[in-house]
């Protein structure tokens, strides 16, 4: 190969390497490093707005949907002795509590936390919930008559829908949270009977909530469990689907609310900027933006403006279970559900 060509290549690579290494060689104090488990399409605009409004450079690491939450949680635990991140923006609460238990977090009581319900923030200030999703059922309106549409998660056990109900990987993400919540609410025996019934009805386990949405929209599955943002994505896209908040009737168990959570990492390299980012994320402005986005997230703060198609938390019947109870049920529920549905 021509030596000059090789020489040019080497110089180009050296320049590219210096460019990519630039930030590491000359770290800036005016930056904040955030690990984000919330969907990149929804979270990135918020972080860019923070950059614009404050002049603080944001460096983000996003999780992939398939490993949602748990990939970055593992990384935060591994980095505990020498943290790289300043802030973790999680899309649920159970693994947030795990991080607190592992000593990865540092308390910070943001002013933005004051208007959030007590049940969705840590009493010691280690984490605060905001902008929630909810677990919902989605069904194909061309395959399911409206009179037969599911109203409760128990309707998924109906033999009519054998082999036509889908859920995401129950060991991960918000589906895992819902499984744990049912274990906590119903007790182990009843919960195990329910999921055994689901297996008996040939429930299909797919990779993610997004896949549940896609397969229901195409009619390959008739219904499934997913999150509000996925369901809304299909509805606003004009697909033949409808969404149901499960168990809203009298005597029903209600639906599980899944707030985002934000937290300060212990030993964060940029503490002050981290606190500013946390304040920004917990503000009513951010909650309003997330409610107006395709994510249609439900604000937890009092009096936060939101569009008509986003319910307020007061209008929903919510599952009567504490986040700490959900967390404490997580391991044993995951072990059971993995053995049952993933074999």
């Amino acid at each position, binding site marked *: 190969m021509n030596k000059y060509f090789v020489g040019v290549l080497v110089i180009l690579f050296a320049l590219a390497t210096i460019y*990519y290494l630039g930030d590491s060689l000359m770290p800036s104090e005016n930056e904040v490093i955030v690990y984000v488990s919330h969907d990149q399409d929804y979270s990135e605009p918020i972080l860019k707005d923070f950059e614009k409004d404050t002049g603080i450079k944001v460096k983000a690491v996003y999780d992939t*949907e398939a490993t949602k939450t748990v990939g970055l949680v593992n*990384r935060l635990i591994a980095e505990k002795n020498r943290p790289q991140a300043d802030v973790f923006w999680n899309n649920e609460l159970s693994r947030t509590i795990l991080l607190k238990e592992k000593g990865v977090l540092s308390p910070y009581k943001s002013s933005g936390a004051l208007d959030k319900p007590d049940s969705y923030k840590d009493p010691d200030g280690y984490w605060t919930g905001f902008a929630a999703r909810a677990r919902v059922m989605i069904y194909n*309106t061309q395959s399911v008559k409206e009179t037969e*549409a599911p109203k409760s998660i128990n309707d998924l056990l109906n033999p009519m829908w054998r082999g036509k109900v889908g859920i995401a990987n129950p060991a991960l993400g918000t589906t895992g949270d819902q499984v744990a919540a049912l274990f906590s609410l119903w007790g182990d025996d009843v919960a195990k009977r329910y999921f055994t019934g689901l297996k008996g009805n040939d429930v299909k386990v797919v990779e993610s909530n*997004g896949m549940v949405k896609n397969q229901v929209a*195409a009619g390959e599955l008739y219904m499934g469990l997913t999150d509000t943002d996925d369901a809304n994505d299909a509805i606003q896209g004009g697909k033949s689907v409808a969404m149901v908040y499960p168990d809203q009737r009298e005597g029903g168990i209600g639906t599980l609310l899944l707030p985002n959570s934000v937290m300060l990492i212990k030993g964060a390299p940029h503490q002050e900027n981290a606190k500013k980012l946390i304040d920004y994320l917990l503000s009513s402005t951010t909650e309003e933006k997330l409610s107006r986005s395709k994510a249609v997230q439900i604000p937890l703060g009092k009096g936060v403006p939101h569009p*008509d198609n986003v319910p307020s938390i007061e209008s929903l019947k919510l599952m009567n279970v504490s986040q700490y109870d959900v967390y404490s049920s997580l391991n044993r529920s995951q072990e059971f559900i*993995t053995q049952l549905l993933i*074999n």
Partner: protein
Amino acid sequence: MKILSIASFLILSVLPLAYMYGGHFNLDRYAWIFKDVRQQSIFERTMYLGLGTVLLCIVLGVSVAVLLEYADIPFRSYLKVLIIISLLIPPYISGISFLTFIGKNWVSAEFREPNPEVASMVRRDRSAVLNASSLQNSLMNRTVASVPVTPKRPWYIPFDIDPYNIEWAILILSSCLFPIVFLLTSFALRNIDSRMVDAALLLQPPLKVIWKVNLPMILPQILVSGLVVFIFAVSELGIPSIMRVNTLTMEVFNHFTGFFDTGQALALSFPLVASIALLILAAQLLTGKKPFISVPLHTKDRVILKLSRAQKALGLAYILLIIFVSSVIPLIVLIINSNYAFVEALEKAGDSMLNSLFLSFLCSSVMLVPAFFISYFYKGDKGMDYLILSPLIAPSAALGIGMIGIWNNDYTSIIYGSFLVLAFGYLARFLPFTIKALTPFMEQIPASVEESGRLAGASFAKVAADILVPLAKPGLLIAWLIGFILCMRELDLSVMLTPPGFQTLPNRIFTLYHYGDIKTTSALSLFLVAIVVIPYLAIIIVNNTSKWHISNSRK
């Protein structure tokens, strides 16, 4: 240099895993996995997947390599380029494409025209649909079709196919991975000493010569390629996930990420470790007593199988069918699914594309240095094979956590805080492949070449630069290409090691895929294929226009 090369390999590839496995060893966990019936069943399924894929890949890869290297099939040089395109398409993308092709059209639901009646009602009701208090009224007032509608089967599919099983997973994995066998077999066939072939042809017809002389001579390369295919097949997460087949790798992943049980996850990977070690041993036993290593006089095309017109047509049809199923169908589906949203895809992921391109070029080039020296100094050292392949056995997540443990400290902050940690991860993960790809070519360089140079007073560095590297050029090119493809497609390590502000293209594609953005995913996948095809074409051109001579055969 010998010690330096192996030391770099040990630090990069072996140390993170030793850190992980050593730090989480627990005999009870290892005992449990052999007693648990469910784990046994998952292990059997994983072996079936791996070995089934290897078998099919060898049948396809070797048959195509023989036809394209030895038979006078028309358009051979073009077919050689087309045959490997399926290797460049990420397996999970191939999986989605196949599912779409056979009518599992949930993928294309995104831009299928919605039912007009439903769409207009959705638009009318949109403000009410998500309002829980009026939801029930909204649903009851809606008049939609009450007859269940099942997805239509495409006209070219005569019967319903249920693809969610292990056999389909094997078929799709084989369609993606058989080019590995083809590549290594093809180069090995081209490098057989033509004098041996000529001698055999004097006594036997061509087919018998191929079957009884050529193929046995290149059995080591075929087995090595089969081993590589096995490792890829059992390590794959995307295809088993899409096809709903639970494998040991998925089990390890779930324990690692769902249960945060690193020790258990590592223990679960042990059966795979043992299986791969046994396969290496079997390969060594089968090939260890081979007395000759063939040294080519030249590498021009050698057609020894003259076919009749009918046989040529049949051969061509066979190869075209394989190309159609493995490459054309996925590409057509990708193009249709992309909806030509290439500009939008670039806007969403242009920076990720540049990141991956830079990182892959850098890593695949840097990887050649230790790979060259290790494969040269340790060629023929059977014991080294175990060490070289050992990093492949562990799941990527374990390697990632191990690397965090090794590199996340005050002294190496410049590495850990930058793309370098991801580059080191790629080196750790893919250096074994590069070494194995290069080894057959290094084994054909006789020791007398180096000895002559040293006798003439040249230093080893000069001998390496002026003699060894040019002689090994075909191997270096193929090793570089394999490293480049692997780096461009890598996903699992990126999640663990990506530095802030840096995202790779596969990471972006996978995330968008799971959001259901199939349009952008398909467009980006087409970019990914194009990015890898270009170097491949360049290497083909360089390889075909260069000539080299090797002076002696060596026992």
